[in-house]
């Protein structure tokens, strides 16, 4: 029964990792950009939520009404005025620039908020649970998982059903031709980043309610997110969800073996998947 419990908890944890990863997957899909600062932006979103909650007394989840648009606007501006200039045939410049952004964010957070670990309070929901047979499921992990599935569903439907989604896909296929038929690719890239940052905002708040964070919590989130994207297969959002679940379950089972083995188990499974299916479980891209 411990094993089943671990698997179920792992699946729910995978929802959080999928949230870390969905934004990464999205921008890689649209513009082949690897955002090294992704995890640090998740932490930045958590701090922004914290400031909003402290100054308005809002509930942690209600703060998303402000955090999501703020982060989306930040994403648009960063892409439009910084990262667009780095995009080209060479993948390296955007990686270097986002690495620089990561350093800037970490040190700015350190200066403003110091090294104290923080946590957002969401009230009784944090510890609430429901019993499903012999297994007890936390309401917060359940909510996180549902949000992850819901967001990915929304992104998928948007990608395949909407005008803007069509422009995302066309730009992803062939930016030069998209431009020649009248798509402003700089705007499309900035919108994709804004969307990625909106997901980051949700991930940041859910992370901060669930666990402690400090200015240097970002890189570990990036690693989990990155592994989820790679396991799932580049460019597939459902694959990203599956990748998050694979890591979550691996960690939960690893923790059953030994608490110290939890994180390592996730990384080992990541390497195993890479060795067997280097293109991930559900590759969409060539």
């Amino acid at each position, binding site marked *: 029964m411990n094993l089943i419990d671990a698997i179920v908890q792992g699946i729910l944890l995978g929802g959080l990792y999928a949230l870390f990863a969905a934004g990464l997957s999205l921008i890689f899909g649209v513009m082949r950009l690897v955002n090294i600062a992704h995890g640090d932006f998740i932490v930045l979103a958590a701090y922004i939520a914290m400031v909003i909650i402290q100054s308005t007394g809002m509930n942690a989840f209600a703060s998303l009404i402000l955090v999501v648009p703020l982060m989306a606007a930040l994403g648009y501006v960063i892409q439009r005025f910084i990262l667009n200039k780095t995009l080209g045939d060479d993948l390296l410049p955007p990686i270097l620039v986002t690495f620089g952004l990561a350093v800037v964010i970490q040190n700015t957070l350190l200066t403003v908020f110091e090294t104290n670990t923080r946590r957002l309070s969401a009230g009784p929901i944090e510890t609430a649970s429901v019993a499903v047979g012999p297994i007890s499921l936390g309401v917060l992990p359940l909510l996180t998982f549902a949000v992850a599935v819901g967001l990915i569903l929304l992104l998928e439907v948007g990608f395949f059903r909407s*005008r803007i989604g*069509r*422009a995302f*896909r*066309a730009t*992803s*296929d*062939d930016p*030069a*031709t*998209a*431009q*020649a*038929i*009248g*798509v*402003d*690719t700089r705007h499309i890239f900035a919108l994709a980043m804004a969307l990625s940052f909106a997901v980051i905002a949700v991930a940041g708040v859910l992370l901060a309610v669930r666990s402690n964070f400090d200015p240097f919590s970002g890189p570990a989130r990036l690693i989990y997110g990155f592994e989820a994207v790679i396991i799932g297969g580049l460019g597939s959002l459902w694959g990203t969800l599956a990748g998050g679940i694979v890591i979550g379950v691996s960690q939960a089972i690893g923790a059953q073996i030994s608490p110290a083995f939890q994180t390592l188990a996730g990384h080992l499974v990541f390497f195993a998947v890479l060795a067997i299916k280097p293109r991930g479980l559900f590759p969409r891209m060539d």
Partner: protein
Amino acid sequence: MADPILSVRGLSSGYGDFQALFDVSFDLAEASVLGVVGANGAGKSTLFKSIMGLLPRGGDMVAFRGKPIGHVRSDRMARLGIVMVPEGRRLFRSLTVEENLNIAADHGRKGDWSPRRVYDLFPILGEKRRQQATQLSGGQQQMVAIGRALVANPDVVLFDEISLGLAPIVVNDVYAALPKIIETGISAVVVEQDVDRVMKLADSLVCLVEGHVALSGAASEFTKAQLTAAYFGEEPA
């Protein structure tokens, strides 16, 4: 001659340090067809990419209805009324036939050309409109590429080697549509390696050799022998 709809003046362009076009000039008269011929590497595709702004060009090297448009970004050209059917078709591979047409319609001008009218012109595309565009045969893909240009309701269409890689009988089908398109008042520049085909279709001709204009004028001024000689870079007899 009436004012040209598109004129190119002293256009020089290239890729980084490599210059592919040298001082190219020509005029496209309204509702006419200009044929551009030349061997591989003569600069034909570079010419189109430069006109469209996908390669660098000077502010006054290209004019549309008398106004310089050399500074206009490539994604504004469709709204201005100039579109390209690119070499190799370049369809969006994750989009269906209909989506390929719709996205161009979204970003083009309003007018009579709609996906429905493209299906009237190429009925086979109507049947296959829900398929991924790149699953179609080469000729059908070329029809989608032409349709994608038309739904932007352009004044000028630049056709880049639309016969490339297609079987001769398929090329006939594709070319059969061109007069119907021109009839609607669209002006066209047609890049083509097949000299015979261009001579039948074009009102005026430009022959490019190594990035220079080797020959230009009304199509009726030239014999095929003259054009072929110019094509291979021989001095006019």
